[in-house]
C-alpha cells in the first residue's frame, strides 16, 4: 500500500515539473509582454511586472501593421480551410461511395503523395506561383493548399465508418449524390468535419515557410512572418516582441481551450492510420 503511494507521489512531482516546463514559456510570454523594457532584461529576471504595461500593445500596433497581419492570416487560414475541406469532402465521398475504374490507382497515388514531405515541393511550387505572377497575392498564399490529401484521407476513413446501406437507402429514396452529401453525409459527420476544419485552421494560422517565400510586401505578410520581421526590426525591445508573440498565439490558444477535447481526439484519430 505504501509503495503505491510513493509511486503516485513521484508521478505527481514529475508531471508537475514537466507541466511547469510546458506552461512556463506561455506564462513568461504573456507577463513579459506587459513588462517595461527594464524589467525584461534585469538580472536577476523578474516574472511578475510591477505595472501592467498595456501600452506595449499600442506600441506594437503602431510600429507594425499587426491588424493587417491578423486580417491576412485570418483570410488565408479560412479560405484554405473552407476550400480544402470542400474538395476533400467531395473527393472522399467519391472514393467511399462511388464505384469507378481507376479508383485503386487514384488511392495508391494519393497515399504515396501523402508521404512526400512538404518541404520537398515548396520551392518548386514557389517557382510556379512566381511564374504565374501571384507573388504577394492572397491567391498565391492559398493556391497550393486548396487541396489536402491528408484531410481527404481522414474524411475517407470517417465516411467509411458510415454504413454503405445508408447511401443505398438514399439512392432508392430518390436523393441525388449532391442531396446525399448535403442532407445526409455532412449532417451525419458534423463532428468529424468540424474537427478537421479546426485542425486545418490552426495549421493555416501557424504556417510560416510558404508565406515567407511568396510574400515580401509588408501589407501581404501573415502573422508569423510579420512577427519575425518585427522581432528583428524591434531589435532590443524585448517586451514588444513578447507582446507581439502573445498576439499571435492567444487566438489559437483560446480556440484550443474551447475545443480541446475535440482537437485532441481528432489528432489521435487521424494518426492511428499506421
Amino acid at each position, binding site marked *: 500500500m505504501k509503495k503505491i503511494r510513493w509511486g503516485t507521489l513521484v508521478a505527481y512531482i514529475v508531471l508537475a515539473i514537466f507541466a511547469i516546463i510546458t506552461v512556463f514559456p506561455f506564462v513568461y510570454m504573456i507577463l513579459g509582454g506587459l513588462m517595461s523594457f527594464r524589467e525584461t532584461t534585469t538580472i536577476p529576471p523578474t516574472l511578475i511586472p510591477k505595472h501592467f504595461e498595456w501600452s506595449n500593445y499600442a506600441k506594437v500596433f503602431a510600429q507594425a501593421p499587426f491588424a493587417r497581419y491578423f486580417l491576412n492570416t485570418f483570410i488565408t487560414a479560412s479560405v484554405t480551410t473552407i476550400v480544402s475541406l470542400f474538395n476533400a469532402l467531395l473527393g472522399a465521398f467519391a472514393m467511399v461511395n462511388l464505384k469507378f475504374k481507376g479508383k485503386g490507382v487514384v488511392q495508391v497515388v494519393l497515399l504515396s503523395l501523402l508521404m512526400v514531405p512538404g518541404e520537398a515541393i515548396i520551392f518548386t511550387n514557389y517557382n510556379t506561383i512566381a511564374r504565374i505572377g501571384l507573388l504577394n497575392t492572397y491567391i498565391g498564399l492559398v493556391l497550393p493548399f486548396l487541396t489536402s490529401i491528408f484531410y481527404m484521407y481522414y474524411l475517407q476513413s470517417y465516411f467509411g465508418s458510415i*454504413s454503405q*446501406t*445508408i447511401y*443505398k*437507402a*438514399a*439512392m*432508392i*429514396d*430518390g*436523393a*441525388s449524390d449532391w*442531396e446525399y452529401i448535403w*442532407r*445526409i453525409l455532412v*449532417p*451525419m459527420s458534423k463532428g468529424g468535419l468540424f474537427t478537421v476544419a479546426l485542425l486545418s485552421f490552426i495549421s493555416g494560422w501557424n504556417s510560416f515557410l510558404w508565406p515567407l517565400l511568396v510574400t515580401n510586401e509588408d501589407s501581404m505578410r501573415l502573422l508569423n512572418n510579420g512577427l519575425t520581421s518585427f522581432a528583428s526590426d524591434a531589435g532590443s525591445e524585448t517586451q514588444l516582441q513578447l507582446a507581439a508573440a502573445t498576439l499571435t498565439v492567444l487566438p489559437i490558444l483560446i480556440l484550443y481551450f474551447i475545443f480541446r477535447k475535440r482537437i485532441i481526439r481528432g489528432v489521435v484519430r487521424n494518426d492511428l492510420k499506421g
Partner: protein
Amino acid sequence: MNDDKFVEVKNLKKVYDNGHEAIKDVSFSVKKGDLVCLLGPSGCGKTTILNMLAGLLNPTSGDILFDSKSVVNVAPKDRQIGYVFQNYALYPHMTVLQNVMFPLTVGKQKMPKDKAKEIAEKYMETTQITELADQKPGNLSGGQQQRVAIARALVQQPKILLMDEPLSNLDARLRLKIREEIRNLVKKVGITTLFVTHDQEEALSIGDKIILFNNGVIQQDDMGQNFYLEPNNYFVANFVGNPVIDNFKVNVKDGKITGSDFEINVDDLDKSRFKRDLTNGEYTLSVRPENILPAETGHVSAKIDDVELIGRERILKFTHDGVQARSLVDLETPIKRGDNVNLKMRLDRVFLFTKEGERVY
C-alpha cells in the same frame, strides 16, 4: 399489362469483378400483389438478386421487367420501388418524421413540406409509429426502427417492395409478431413484395410463394408446402424441414434397394411417384423424421442415442451407418434413451436422389 408476370426476371447473370459467379442464369416471375420469399443459405445470391432488382447492382447479362417494361437501365430512384434494409439504414440525425418524409423531399419530384408531411403521417399511422414522430432512430427499439423503415419504403407509393432480411436483427419472439404484421400490412396496402430470408420457417409462414436459391441457381420455385412434400432435389429436401430429413446411403440393383442393414423391393414403392426410370447404382434414400416411426418390425433397427423434447413432440436420435438420423414421435411415446427399436419408413413418402442430387422418386 400482365399481372401474372408483374415482376419478371429473365436469364439473369451476375459475375463480380473478382470473377465470382454470384448468379448463374436465373429466371422467375412474381404475380401482382403477391408476397414472394427469396430463400437460401447465406452467400446463395438472394441479396444480389434483390440489389439488382433495386438497381443498386448492374446485372452482367439478362433482363429485369417491372410491369412488362425493362428496368435494367433505369436508376434506382426511378424504378418505383421501396427497399427495407437488413440494418434498416435509418438516417440517424433525422427524427422519425424526417426519415419518413425524406423520400418525398428529394429528387426531381420534390413536393412541398406540408404535403410531404401529410403523406408521411398517413403511412406512419398505417405502420403505427405516429407517436414516435419526434424521436431519433437511436432511441427506438428494433421493432420500432423496423416500422419506420417500412413506412419510409412505402411513402413514395412504390409498385414493388423489396425487403432484405428485415427480421434478422430482432429477437425471436418479436420476429414472430412482426412477420405477421408485415404480411398483414403488405396485403392491406396490396403491394407486390419480394422478401429475402435465410429462415425457412419465416419463408413458409409469410410467403405466397417461395423461391429457393443455392450457389446462384434456383433450386425450386413453388408454393410453400411443396418444398416439404415434393422437393425438387437433394438440396431442397435437406434445406427445408425441421428436424432435418434423414438420409440413408443405398445401392439399387435389379429391383432391390439395399441399405447397410435393410432391403426394400422397388415394387413396394408407389409407381406413380417415379420421376424417371430407376437404374442400377448408388442413391440416397431420404425420409422425413415423421415418416420413419417405431414399429414391431421395421426397415431399420437402432439404439436410441438421445431423446429431445420439442413442444408437443419428441425427436428420437439414433446413429445409422455412421450418420445421425431422427424419428419424430408423439410426446406420449414411452421410448427412452438407450432403448433398442425397430423403425419403419412410409414408403409412399420417401425420396430417392442420385449422387448428383437429382430426384428419381
